[in-house]
């Protein structure tokens, strides 16, 4: 009776945290006001892997750092309860694992060590200024995968279904479906259908990781999760322990059900660093021989890592750096014109030290213009945000990306600051621009230009048409001192596909090198 209560409590806790996570996730969207109403980066703020790696790489203490201390202290005292009771990704693994009817216990006795080596690799590279934690951090991975792939796909599915019923226009049914659609639009769906470069790739990776649960339950948590490894190390001296009484008959039930491979032998030997504190063993022990409490542990098994492998992983973490950085971007001469960073982004080097690729900025971007990079910023910068104006521009008075960034890679700008920050410069391709190339009137770029004094002005030119008649056309010119590079001109240019006006990263405020003018 008592034990069942524990299991139900755990499930309740997992459900509540997952729902809270999903609620905050869906709230990470503009409602039209300047500020977002909810602390949407909440879960990342509590994530010690993010805060420690950011501390190492950027020597920066973010506001979230103090919140992550709560998890650190909690883990030091209580063990990996975060993994078993809170982590929304862990809960998803539980849910998928439910469909795996094989015994939970993994056959791979030694694989668990891999995640620790992964952690050492990540932290070593962090210490030497590369921020790679976000790629494998479970919270970051979850937000990124949901933002860039799963949620857009669910939106697509929902919209396509309702659109079909709408087009078929079936009496009564369409009316009802439109009513339901209206409710979903308010509470669940995004404002417009989001599209992301690499959405398929990021989504497939996510589904693959979830799918590993069908091979072995909580595969990720046991063998891959670097946050789990960090918490495992932190939990070494926890005071919430498990003990096995003399009544144990070594039946092996606890070993079979343990989702963390923490029970290493049928006699109930326990590797506390692997325990997720689900307490299912306590629940299922036929002899009621297992007890969790603030007691001395017995039959404990230490974390078994080899010094050689630790050294190898740390060395690999350091060695990865030069390998990642022998790209032209590391030099001063080559600057990628397509790498348009969001407004408020730090200098590229500082930016890469902090960005954890959680994808929240891309999720919240009001025009869908922020997209994940692949190699634009080198492999080191994979899945960091860049603006792609042909998809969406940077809304002049929007500061949401800086508001949601959990590590300050994108600074939170005030509205006044935002209006002066340049993320690039628009340039005109006169070979395609309608008034230049074809003598056809068009003023779209000037009309949409959002700077209070327009950054696009007109030069009136008398032109001769093919038939000899003369006409006056207004040719747009970019005021290079005023242009902030928001890209709205590129988004709305009637020359589709390859617009006649486009933004390059030159003149971005954050960079000292990427400047054109003597006096920027």
């Amino acid at each position, binding site marked *: 009776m008592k034990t069942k209560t524990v299991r139900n409590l755990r499930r309740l806790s997992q459900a509540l945290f997952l729902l809270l996570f999903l609620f905050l996730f869906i709230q990470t969207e503009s*409602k*039209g006001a300047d500020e977002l109403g909810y602390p949407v980066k909440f879960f990342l703020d509590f994530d010690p892997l993010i805060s420690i790696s950011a501390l190492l790489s950027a020597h920066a203490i973010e506001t979230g750092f103090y919140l992550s201390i709560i998890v650190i202290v909690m883990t030091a005292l209580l063990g990996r309860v975060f993994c078993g009771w809170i982590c929304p990704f862990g809960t998803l693994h539980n849910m998928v694992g439910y469909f795996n009817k094989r015994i939970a216990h993994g056959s791979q006795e030694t694989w668990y060590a891999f995640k620790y080596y992964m952690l050492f690799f990540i932290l070593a590279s962090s210490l030497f200024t590369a921020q790679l934690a976000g790629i494998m951090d479970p919270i970051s991975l979850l937000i990124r995968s949901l933002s860039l792939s799963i949620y857009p796909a669910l939106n697509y599915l929902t919209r396509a279904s309702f659109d079909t019923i709408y087009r078929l226009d079936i009496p009564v049914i369409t009316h009802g479906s439109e009513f339901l659609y209206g409710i979903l639009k308010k509470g669940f769906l995004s404002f417009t259908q989001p599209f992301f470069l690499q959405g398929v790739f990021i989504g497939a990776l996510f589904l693959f990781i979830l799918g590993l649960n069908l091979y072995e339950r909580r595969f990720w948590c046991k063998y891959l999760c670097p946050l789990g490894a960090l918490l495992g190390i932190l939990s070494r001296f926890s005071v919430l322990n498990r003990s096995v009484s003399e009544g144990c008959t070594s039946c092996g039930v606890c070993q079979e059900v343990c989702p963390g491979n923490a029970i290493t032998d049928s006699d109930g030997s326990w590797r506390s660093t692997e325990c997720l504190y689900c307490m299912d063993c306590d629940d299922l022990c036929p002899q009621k021989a297992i007890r969790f409490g603030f007691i001395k542990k017995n039959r404990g098994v230490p974390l078994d890592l080899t010094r050689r492998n630790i050294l190898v992983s740390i060395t690999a973490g350091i060695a990865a750096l030069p390998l990642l950085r022998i790209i032209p971007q590391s030099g001063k001469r080559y600057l990628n014109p397509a790498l348009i960073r969001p407004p408020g982004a730090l200098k590229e080097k500082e930016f890469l030290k902090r960005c954890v690729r959680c994808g929240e900025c891309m999720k919240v971007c009001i025009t869908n213009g922020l997209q994940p990079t692949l190699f634009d910023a080198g492999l080191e910068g994979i899945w960091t945000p860049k603006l792609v104006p042909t998809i969406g521009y940077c809304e*002049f008075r*929007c500061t949401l990306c800086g508001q949601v960034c959990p590590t300050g890679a994108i600074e939170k700008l005030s509205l006044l600051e935002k209006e002066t920050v340049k993320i690039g410069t628009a340039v005109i391709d006169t070979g395609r621009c309608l008034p230049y190339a074809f003598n056809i*009137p068009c003023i*779209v770029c000037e009309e949409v230009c*959002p700077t209070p*004094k327009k950054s696009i002005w007109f030069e009136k030119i008398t032109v001769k048409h093919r038939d000899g008649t003369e006409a006056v056309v207004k040719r747009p010119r970019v005021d290079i001192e005023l242009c902030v590079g928001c890209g709205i001109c590129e988004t*709305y240019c009637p020359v589709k596909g390859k617009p006649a006006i486009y933004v390059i990263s030159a003149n971005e405020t954050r960079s000292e090198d990427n400047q054109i003018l003597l006096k920027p």
Partner: protein
Amino acid sequence: MNRRDFLKTTFIAGLGISIHGSFDSFVRSLYASDDADIAVARGQSPGRITKAAIDALGGMGKFITKGDRVVVKPNIGWDRKPEQAANTNPEVVAAIVSLCYEAGAGTVKVFDRPVSDPRRCYKQSGIADAASAAGAEVSFIDERKFKKVAIDGLVLKDWPLYTEILEADKIINVPIAKTHGLAMLTLGMKNWMGVMGGWRSRIHQSLDESLVDVSRVIKPTLIVLDAVRILTANGPQGGSLDDVRELNMVIAGTDQVAVDAYGATLFGLRGSDLGYVRIGHQSGLGTMDLSKLVIRNVVL
């Protein structure tokens, strides 16, 4: 139906229409105050001058009948605050919504297809909040609800237009007066771009003719031009308060060309300076000859 029957029916129907028309003008002549073609109201309260201008034309009851499905179409094109004068004044919009309901309107819908992000435009302009508070159904454009409409105009053969405006019983156009890089000014007729779907930016290649074409298809019962604040430079989006002038005026009328022609005078221009006003006049959409119109001025 043979030819004789057809002619007979047509004749009777025509007679009916003309009698109805003359009866209407007879009733209208009973009210000496509502013979104005354009009403111009000045005063400090945008809501009150809006009502005053409409009253000077005979009151909202003259335009709205009980149960009407009304569309009030403001300009919500940009992510700007009311004081920046890039969108219609929210108090003007709210006043019109209230007047419609007072006149017995069944539903009043308010929408626009903005250029900047719709959420920010609706919110920052103050229009969504003000119009909702007045009881209007404020909704974002649903891209599925554009329908290709035959126009057969000067340049546009057809164009996708918003069905909710096509299906409305009464349409009230509520533009704001601003400068524009190509049209010189954006007033009432240009405001119809907000119900055009598709890649509407293409119409800039023949803007004046296109605007007249669309204005022929969408027939407003009433036009209320917001000149509480006008944008005199860097329009239509503005942003700097230096470019905003407070006129504290609202202009109301029923002739699209005439209202725009009057709007031009606010900027020291004549209606004939604006291509779409000139073409609208020439093609019989309305008149730009203000000297032939009765213009009633009201000062509060």
